């Protein structure tokens, strides 16, 4: 709680900080008298609920202080400083408020002892043309005017106080309040409150704030003003931005490190249920690798696991950035955070910014700051509701599925080659597609060729993808509702929010919902003590029905329903004849009815996750600028996954039947009943922290420092279980013989009943001490330093290496504040440079570790262990060093502003596998064996193209990152020297190699198809070759290097337009300089799919295959060969034709909103916004001619349309 008041020249002339002691030392609350407060309350709505009358009275301690001074011809500044210090020693703060020009060059001689403040000041100012007033410990000095005028003024002066709010009716900090025609300024404090003394009645006061439209108000009487400033649509980079690094707030203008700040407006632009995916395309240096899209319905595969900040920093260890909520690492699933609770997000990118998080920061840190209440603000209710809809993925667009005609062609071919002969007579009756059955009957002479063709033709008029669309897929919809209440009295603040999100997946019967409650309260029971309590609760429930996936993998002419929509059986697992005869042999029905299962929900996974978080903290202010706080976080999350296969499900019937052999003695060892698979996990994390904060202005220096220690523990438990003979109605299970072996039918294998009870437990402990400090001198030069030492129970690492010390240094220079700086066009220019280290949590062990298997030994079920890694006691922690050089700039009136950052990252001691003679028992050993060097640039450019009634603003983000492996000795597990096949491809996590980009794309050199056979041809030893084995084992030097698998350049350009209440913005994302590998046909995989009566391994390239001489001029897809040759398939899949340039530009989203303002005030709303949002509008440009989206090699997502309303009252 601080108050700032100072008198200054207009900014363009005021280059000297006059005296900011007042800013840090003033007592804002003390200014607020109860009389004024009462007046304030009358104005405010709904105050009765929360506000308590202010009981704090002014204690003008300064009047009881005594001062001793002894100066001779000293400058007034010197004298004032001495007075302040003496006041401080007597537990009081004094602020001097004056106009620099007024005291310029004035000196005084004074000699007093034990005098009161008034006497002291009179003595000091004796003979000088200055007068002073003291109010609320602020000593205001001004030039003496002519007595007549002075009197006239005094007669009609008033004191103006007020509260300035932002567009959301929250206190606006740092708004400038000035008197028109005068040079008197004050700024609003943390509670948005200001006070102007001795204003001539009738003056106009001007209230302004960067990013807001300026208001002018005429003063008539002593007055209280409450005013909401309107957001200037052409909003600017906010100069009063405070970055939160999780330990402290860092004022943007004094920060040396590299932070990326996403404010609420930008964050809330996108409609979505999760937090992390919203950072895609709006934060610089943040990249989402969309090749591996695994995630929940909340994030659609864009989540923390495929996110990287400034490139990849590690090889084997955990590569995900650290997520921090407010002050503590967030252990749970980030999808449990309600995005409507997020105030802002700070991304810590370089060492100076992130090093405070030590060994957890090597991959960057995302600090999520949640919304909170504020002191002396009335209750404000904010709500947001929206609805989104998206068409389902069209299975006809899948490249990995072949229609009935092609599939039958392949089946006939394999049949003619005798491939099915073994399967058709296999005593275990494996699944055979209807077409193969028909072909077999034709061959046996049971039916004629004409009959066979007619039957096949009839079958193949059906396409299972139509069934999928008709019965299994639907429009995906999602709904979001959020309400929050925020406000505060003079002693307490509160924030309470409730959120509900519900997603109905495109898969019929699948969906997830999430309910969140979050409260954040602060309370000041006594002076100087602030208590904080934050409780949040998230519960999410999901349902997943697994048959949809298997339907899309069926043979393409499978029919799941008849014309009337009655479920039909499909062939899976066993031949149709076998499955049909099961019932008459005493077994349960062995046929698979996917549609019936969907309708009965007989194969459903219900997941439930609960996340509780409690944060408590206490902060005590010992004296202004010195505080100490302790805080504690307790986070407890549980997750539960229950897969219930009812006795009607194919899975359960199959398992029950399999264990039954009527010819043997085992009849239903798995009882006839439901089978319930349960798995539970709990995560308990506890964090404790003690910290001392130091914040002082000493002379011309603004010193900020923190130091502290913390302890952190994360305990993860897991359990899983299978229950047989489960009855949902009775809640009972039946005992099962897990010990005896049963001979399975029809496979004949001996097996015990699956037991699958697993228990796991991990415990990670960390202790740290840290220090972080910065000093800004004369408002121009900033120096920062940090140091941290981390230790962890990384089991096995030698004790003396358990700790790792890390540090950072940084400097900043605000050139535009220099007296010599006169470049008008660039009104703000700031240089920053940092260097430092952060670390990465190791994932390797150094002592001989035996690893217990969670299941019993094969055959005996005895507990067993294995030596899981060879001993390496020399392992040390991975380190990431980073140099960051940056320039921030802004033009006159901030029409153009932005920043340019260059960084060099060097990850050393990376733990990776080094090849080992397998005779040791291991093929590799974990060593500190790798280094990565990355260079990059982050550029941000914001322009205000048009301002006024119509506004147009552009934000451009461009990031460049190129990470090279500078050392790597761990080659593939099977060979000592890298061979070509280890490096081809563009899959994630390909083997790194010295001197190349971390994820490089290599391809086999291509020499077209053999005109005679349609075989793919490559090169071996400089000659055209079809010896794929040799080509694959060749040196990697003979591969064709394509480039990076990750875009070297990426970013986005966002244009925002405003007109009256309308705002329209569009975000275009681009990714350049990279390559991707498209999927193609692998005959060996396809044949395996065909043999199993599934569509797996299919690919539409089959259609383009070489079929006759001459085709090699038209296609690169090899001919269908028999038997399939895996090496031929692998060669072709990784040959040049299947690598394409990934460069693309996409229209990521468009948002249109309309804000209703004053018209709705009389209904109690202060603001309402209705908005529409469309995402994934499509690819605007792409380098590949095949019309492929490198992010989605399967089915690209359809557009999502969202509509919503949000408002405040």
């Amino acid at each position: 709680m601080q108050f700032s008041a100072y008198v200054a020249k207009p900014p363009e002339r005021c280059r000297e900080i006059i005296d900011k002691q007042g800013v840090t030392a003033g007592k804002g609350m003390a200014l607020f008298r109860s009389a004024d407060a009462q007046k304030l309350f009358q104005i405010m709505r709904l105050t009765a609920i929360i506000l308590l009358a202010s009981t704090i009275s002014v204690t003008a301690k300064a009047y009881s202080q005594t001062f001793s001074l002894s100066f001779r011809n000293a400058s007034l500044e010197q004298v004032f400083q001495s007075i302040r210090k003496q006041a401080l020693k007597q537990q009081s703060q004094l602020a001097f408020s004056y106009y620099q020009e007024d005291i310029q060059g004035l000196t005084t001689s004074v000699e007093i002892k034990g005098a009161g403040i008034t006497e002291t000041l009179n003595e000091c100012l004796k003979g000088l043309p200055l007068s002073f007033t003291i109010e609320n410990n602020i000593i205001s000095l001004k030039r003496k005017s002519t007595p007549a005028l002075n009197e006239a003024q005094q007669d009609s002066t008033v004191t103006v106080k007020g509260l300035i709010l932002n567009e959301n009716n929250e206190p606006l900090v740092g708004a400038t309040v000035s008197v028109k025609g005068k040079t008197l300024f004050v700024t609003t404090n943390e509670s948005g409150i200001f006070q102007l003394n001795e204003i001539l009645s009738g003056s106009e006061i001007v209230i302004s704030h960067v990013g807001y439209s300026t208001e002018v108000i005429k003063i008539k009487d002593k007055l209280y003003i409450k005013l909401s400033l309107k957001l200037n649509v052409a909003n600017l980079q906010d100069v009063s931005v405070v970055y939160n690094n999780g330990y402290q707030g860092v004022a943007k203008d004094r920060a040396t490190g590299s932070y990326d700040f996403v404010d609420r407006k930008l964050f809330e632009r996108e409609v979505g249920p999760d937090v992390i995916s919203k950072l895609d395309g709006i934060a610089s240096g943040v990249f989402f690798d969309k090749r591996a899209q695994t995630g929940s319905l909340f994030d659609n595969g864009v989540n923390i696991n495929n996110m990287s900040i400034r490139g990849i920093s590690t090889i084997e260890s955990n590569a995900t950035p650290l997520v921090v909520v407010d002050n503590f690492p967030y252990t749970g699933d980030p999808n449990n955070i309600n995005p409507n609770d997020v105030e802002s997000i700070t991304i810590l990118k370089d060492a100076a910014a992130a090093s405070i998080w030590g060994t957890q920061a090597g991959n960057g840190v995302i600090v999520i700051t949640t919304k909170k209440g504020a002191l002396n603000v009335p209750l404000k209710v904010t709500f947001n509701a929206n609805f989104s809809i998206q068409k389902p993925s069209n299975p006809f667009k899948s490249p990995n599925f072949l229609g009935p005609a092609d599939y039958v062609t392949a089946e006939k071919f394999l049949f003619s080659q005798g491939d099915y002969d073994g399967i058709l007579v296999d005593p275990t009756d494996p699944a055979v597609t209807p077409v193969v059955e028909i072909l077999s009957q034709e061959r046996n002479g049971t039916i004629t060729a004409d009959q066979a063709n007619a039957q096949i033709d009839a079958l193949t008029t059906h396409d299972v993808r139509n069934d999928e669309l008709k019965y299994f897929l639907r429009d995906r919809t999602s709904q979001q509702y959020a309400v929050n209440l925020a406000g505060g009295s003079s002693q307490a603040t509160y924030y309470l929010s409730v959120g509900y999100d519900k997603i109905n997946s495109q898969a019929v019967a699948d969906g997830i919902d999430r309910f969140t409650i979050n409260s954040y309260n602060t309370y000041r029971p006594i002076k100087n003590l602030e208590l904080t309590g934050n409780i949040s609760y998230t519960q999410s429930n999901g349902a997943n029905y697994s048959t949809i996936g298997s339907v899309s993998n069926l043979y393409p002419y499978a029919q799941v329903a008849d014309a009337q929509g009655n479920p039909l059986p499909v062939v899976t697992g066993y031949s149709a004849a076998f499955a049909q005869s099961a019932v008459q042999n005493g077994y349960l029905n062995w046929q698979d009815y996917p549609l019936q299962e969907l309708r009965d929900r007989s194969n459903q996974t219900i997941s439930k996750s609960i996340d509780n978080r409690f944060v408590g903290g206490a902060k005590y202010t010992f004296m202004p600028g010195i505080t100490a706080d302790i805080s504690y976080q307790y986070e407890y999350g549980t997750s539960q996954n229950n897969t219930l296969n009812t006795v009607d499900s194919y899975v359960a019937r199959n398992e029950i039947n399999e264990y039954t052999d009527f010819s043997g003695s085992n009849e239903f060892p798995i009882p006839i009943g439901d089978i319930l698979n349960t798995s539970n996990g709990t995560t308990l994390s506890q964090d404790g922290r003690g910290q001392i904060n130091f914040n002082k202005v000493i002379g011309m220096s603004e010193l900020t420092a923190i130091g502290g220690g913390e302890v952190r523990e994360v305990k993860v438990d897991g359990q899983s279980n299978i229950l047989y003979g489960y009855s949902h109605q009775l809640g009972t299970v039946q005992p099962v013989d897990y010990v005896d072996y049963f001979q399975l039918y029809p496979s004949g294998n001996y097996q015990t009943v699956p037991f699958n009870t697993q228990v796991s437990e991990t415990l990670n402990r960390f202790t740290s001490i840290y220090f972080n400090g910065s000093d800004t001198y004369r408002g121009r030069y900033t120096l920062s330093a940090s140091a941290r030492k981390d230790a962890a129970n990384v089991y096995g690492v030698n004790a003396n290496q358990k700790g790792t010390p890390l540090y950072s240094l940084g400097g900043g220079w605000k050139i535009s504040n220099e007296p010599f700086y006169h470049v008008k066009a660039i009104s703000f220019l700031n240089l920053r440079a940092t260097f430092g280290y952060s670390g990465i949590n190791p994932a390797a062990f150094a002592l001989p570790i035996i690893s217990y298997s969670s299941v019993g030994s094969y055959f005996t079920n005895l507990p067993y262990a294995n030596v899981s890694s060879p001993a390496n006691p020399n392992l040390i922690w991975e380190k990431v060093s980073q140099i960051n050089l940056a320039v921030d700039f802004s033009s006159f009136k901030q029409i153009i502003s932005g920043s340019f950052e260059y960084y060099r990252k060097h990850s050393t001691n990376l733990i990776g596998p080094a090849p080992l003679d397998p005779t040791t028992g291991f093929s590799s050993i974990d060593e500190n064996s790798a280094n990565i060097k990355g260079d990059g640039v982050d550029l941000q450019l914001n322009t205000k193209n048009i301002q006024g009634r119509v506004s147009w603003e552009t934000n451009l983000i461009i990031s460049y990152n190129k990470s090279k492996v500078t050392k790597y000795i761990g080659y593939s597990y099977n060979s000592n020297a890298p061979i070509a096949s280890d490096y081809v491809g563009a899959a994630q996590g390909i083997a790194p190699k010295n001197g190349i980009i971390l994820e490089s794309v290599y391809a086999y050199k291509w020499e077209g198809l053999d005109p005679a056979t349609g075989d793919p041809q490559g090169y071996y030893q400089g000659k055209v070759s079809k010896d794929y084995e040799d080509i694959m084992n060749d040196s990697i030097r003979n591969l064709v290097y394509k480039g990076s698998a990750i875009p070297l350049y990426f970013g986005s350009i966002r244009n925002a337009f405003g007109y009256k209440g309308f705002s329209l913005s569009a975000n275009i994302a681009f990714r350049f300089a990279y390559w991707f590998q498209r999927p193609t046909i692998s005959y060996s995989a396809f044949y395996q799919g065909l043999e199993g009566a599934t569509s797996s391994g299919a690919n539409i390239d089959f259609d383009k295959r070489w079929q006759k001489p001459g085709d090699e001029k038209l296609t690169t897809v090899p001919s269908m060969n028999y038997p399939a040759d895996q090496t031929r398939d692998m060669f072709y899949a990784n040959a040049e034709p299947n690598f394409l340039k990934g460069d693309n530009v996409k229209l990521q989203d468009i948002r249109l909103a309309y804000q209703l303002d004053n018209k709705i005030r009389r209904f109690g709303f202060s603001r309402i916004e209705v908005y529409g949002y469309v995402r994934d509008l499509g690819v605007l440009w792409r380098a590949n001619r095949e019309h492929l989206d490198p992010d989605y090699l399967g089915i690209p997502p359809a557009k999502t349309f969202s509509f919503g309303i949000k408002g405040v009252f």
Partner: protein
Amino acid sequence: MKMAIGKYVVLLAVSFGLVFTGCKKYLAANSNISNQVPTTAGDLQALLNRFLFDSPTPIIASDDYFLQYSGWSSMYSIFDQMNYLWDANTPDEGSWAVAYNYIENYNTVLDNINNVSLGDSSAGALPRIKARALFLRAYTFLNLVQVYTKGYDSATAKGDLGICLRTTSSATASSIRATMEETYNQIINDFKTAAVSLPVTEQFSTTPTKVAAYGALARVYLSMSDFVNAKAYADSCLTYNSNLIDFNTLDSNSRYSSPTPQLNPEIIFYTEINGSEVLKSSRALVDSNLYSSYDFNDLRRPMYFRSSSLGGFTFNGSYSHEQSANVFDGIAVDEIYLIRAECEARTSEGYLSGMDDLNTLLKTRWLNTVPFPTFSATSADDALMQILIERRKELLFRGQRKSDLERNNLEPQYAVTLSRDLNGVVYSLPANDLRYAYLIPENVIALGGIVQNPR
């Protein structure tokens, strides 16, 4: 001001001190319950409880089966395809690393045996655990010998290439190929040392026993053609366990005839080979001449074989409970009877007792509704020939064939040339060919700096 700062520096220091008091203990907590430094006898026993899978190569390399072209070409592994044809330049990629990983476990047990506490275990546990580790290591060494070396020839054993006798868990120790003599000495000594401390019976037949050690020694001595010692250990083994299953008690009409392994009284030590797609019953067929050599009243005929849709017959008779490719290759009583019978026949005055042993075995294999045609021999050679034929017929798919071939090939009268016919192309493996010793994987040669098998 200075004083004030000083005060807080002290406070800071105290709080740091608090954080790090007891830090060592706090950070000593185990991070994952699955990960343990072996500290108790139970931990060491757990390292031995991992099921031992043997290399399939001794069976793949043998003439117990053959593939048709369609079966051969439908295999996805080029290594399997090449190894089936005894390709001179294809190394056995898998067996080495798998076997030495087991050996690393056993060496970890042996290296830590004196450093662990008893924990929950009884007082006698540690010597028994040590004996088990020695047994399992020797057994795994023996399996490696069967893949990567040629047969034991006492005339050249001092100079022949053996395997790497790794006896330490340290990853930094270098690898050296021992001679065949050293290799066999190590294996024999380990088995002998183990036999002293091993109990006669165990709950599970996967746990080594004294009987198993004697059986293994009989096997080792036989492969060295040391018939005196082989007979002595076979004797000792059979003293403890001479159970034979009467095949008449099995249901040959059952779709699957093999008795479950735990219930099989013949089993002395249970191991399986690591299944290979080469040996899948849908692919691997048995030679029709071999099949027809079984008498109609020989119950092994219906028990061991079933007709295959591919034409001919496929093997069905493993003591393994897996019908697929994981066949039993452990030690069983029938094998020990055959070892003793052969040794007796090899020593001229004992061939009649050899025939007695053979009859004891075959009686249990014969249909009991017809009179058993007692086998008799006119000479030691006759006896030996009959015993060797029955050994071949009894121990089909048991992993002993390659070793038998190597041993017998040293005697010209028993030497055979193996051949594979693939789509009309005949690949053959003459007696004593260098290819009996499979190539060691290239990375082992390069990283371990050891000598490759000659070609």
